[in-house]
């Protein structure tokens, strides 16, 4: 099943750029929430923005959906500048915000009708659209219930449905699975994949690397307002080799043990080690064979009497890529 979905992804994707973000900066006083982000999203693509909280993902989406004006940079959505033609951009995008942006005292139908009317959808078509979307997100039976009585997952699914009301060319989802039960999370994934198969271009932000790996054709890893890597998930993972080893270097008193240039050079020279980075009391090794490399590293630590406070062998995945690039975990 997944195979056929992926094949369809490939088939539906074109070379036409739907989104172009060029050198985007967004500053709040001295805080640089976004600090020079650039990327393009092709038609039919599911593009992921992966990064920890505060990396600048939501701010980027806020600019793309015309909610916030950029400090510097150009953002074009379906050929329209978000600053010069915001009203046109609003008509081609759908947004699923991180907040549950619904009226809790209204039921699903009332929420959908109200937001749908703002897009001037003719009454009959709106009713049909509402019925289709409720079916898509599995809330048809719960439609007459007040939203305040929904579970967190149901609210998230309705949040998604509202974002799809206007039949957008381009859908932005900002952390749409935060606080969601596994069943609802799975349902949201299926919804996104189905919509993408039908040709919808998607920008998906998350700090869950599994989600990015599963859903996205390409991923931009962002940290501190910048894109630090951008490629397909597989290419990013392949760039790691076969494994990442993290070793904490602190002595018995809990103080950082100094690792000199000579020690770093010797570690770098080990046959199974591709790169080694020393950052914040931690050595991160990118290896071609994690098991063999580990034996060589331990031998060298023993020989030089270097204390080892912690040891971790990481599977090659996007989390490891992030750690390799930043020395931090996505959910630190």
């Amino acid at each position, binding site marked *: 099943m997944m195979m056929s979905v992926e094949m369809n992804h490939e088939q539906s994707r074109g070379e036409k750029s739907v989104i172009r973000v060029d050198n985007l900066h967004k500053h*709040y006083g001295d805080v640089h929430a976004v600090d020079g982000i650039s990327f393009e999203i092709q038609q039919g693509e599911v593009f992921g923005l992966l990064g920890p909280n505060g990396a600048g993902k939501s701010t980027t989406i806020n600019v793309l959906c015309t909610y916030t004006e950029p400090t510097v940079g150009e953002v074009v959505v379906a050929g329209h500048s978000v600053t010069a033609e915001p009203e046109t951009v*609003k008509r081609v995008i759908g*947004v699923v915000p991180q*907040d549950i942006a619904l009226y809790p*005292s209204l039921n699903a139908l009332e929420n959908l009708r*109200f937001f749908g*009317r*703002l897009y001037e959808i003719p009454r009959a078509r709106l009713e049909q659209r509402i019925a289709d979307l409720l079916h898509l997100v599995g809330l048809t039976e719960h439609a007459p219930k007040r939203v305040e009585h929904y579970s967190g997952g149901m609210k998230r699914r309705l949040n998604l449905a509202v974002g799809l009301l206007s039949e957008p060319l381009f859908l932005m989802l900002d952390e749409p699975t935060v606080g969601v039960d596994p069943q609802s999370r799975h349902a949201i994934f299926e919804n996104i994949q189905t919509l993408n198969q039908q040709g919808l271009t998607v920008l998906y932000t998350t700090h869950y690397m599994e989600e990015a790996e599963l859903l996205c054709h390409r991923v931009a890893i962002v940290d501190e307002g910048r894109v630090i890597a951008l490629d397909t998930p597989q290419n990013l993972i392949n760039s790691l080799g076969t494994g990442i080893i993290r070793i904490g270097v602190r002595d018995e008193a809990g103080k950082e043990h100094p690792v000199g240039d000579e020690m770093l050079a010797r570690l770098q020279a080990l046959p199974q080690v591709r790169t080694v980075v020393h950052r914040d009391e931690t050595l991160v090794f990118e290896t071609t064979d994690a098991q063999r490399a580990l034996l060589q590293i331990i031998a060298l630590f023993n020989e030089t009497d270097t204390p080892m406070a912690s040891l971790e062998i990481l599977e090659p995945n996007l989390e490891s890529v992030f750690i390799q690039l930043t020395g931090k975990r996505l959910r630190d």
Partner: protein
Amino acid sequence: MKKLLYVALNELLLLRKDRMAAIWMVILPLGMTFIGGLVFGGLGGGSEAVVIDLPVVDQDGGEIATVVLDVLSQTENLNVETVFDEEMARELVSDGKRTGALVIPSGFSAAIMSGQSAALELIVAPGGQTAPLLEGMVRGVTSALSNVQTTVEVAISEVQRATSSTDLDYAGIAGRAMATALERLHDPPVRAQVTTVGSSEKELDVSSQIVPGYAVMFAMFTVLSAAGGILEEKERGTFKRLLIAPIPRWSLLGGKLIAQFVVGVGQIMLMFIFGVLVFDVNLGSSPLGLLLVTLATCWATTSLGILLVAVIRSRKQIHPITTLVILGSSAIGGAWFPLFLMPKLLQQVARLTLVAWAMEGYNRLMILGGSLADVWVDIGVLTLYGAICFFVGLRLFQFKEG
């Protein structure tokens, strides 16, 4: 324009679905007005006359004592109760069960008949508010009896002077003169006739003060609370969702304000209907004036709401601040007590509040029977007040971050 209407209708739908809002908007104001009307005004708007119960101890039992009891019994607003024990009468007063008691002492009639001085004893509690009223009533009786006695003395003296006879039936003359004079006590030949001219006297109907006062105060609570709802929407994220929908900002904010305005007007009208039905409140003779004062009041309140939301920007702060603004301006603006009862300085300060102008308009129409021409200034000031708050609020209102 259609989208403005959609936003307004959605606001009204949200209000209808909010059970607490229904309590706040309808039940609480009506309940408070009902209680206020009962406490300060009484039902039906009419002020029933107070009847004073007066225990009387007749230790005399004579002819004049009977006249005293008859006269007092016929006095309006006085209910004479015969008590046989003076001690019991004193206890009734000292226990606060009666505001006063009268003792007709033994020998009272004989003293009057023989031309000697005599006194009725009125027992009252110190500081009693009805004591002066009772005293006036009893003094009326003693004054009449003094006149009777004087009349008898003058009659005998004149007969003596005219006849120079010493062999006359003085007791008979005195008795007949006394009987005639006492009769006149029941049917006095000289009366005070009260003639009323012009329109009827304007009695301060408390309900006509309470109903508009509470209506304005609770309308402010409703409208300003709804304005605070914009901050709630900002926190919830629905305001952001509206901003990224293809809807002009003026439609978005205008729709919300129109809904608040309509609700405010509806609430004041509901309070007036309630006032008329339950307290027989007189709404005056200018329905147009009443409508325009109400519209101007709600416009000013709605605009004040947008100004407060623009300045405060935090939902946690807005509720205590709006409560302070509403209660403070209601207290000094005349929503609780008529403005003219307040110190002059406070009356001047009150002019800064929209409540003062609204209440002045309502008082002129509902209590003083004014016309539309009498409330133009109030309508004008309220409209200007609203315009200033609206434009300053709109200028400061932060639609989106950054």
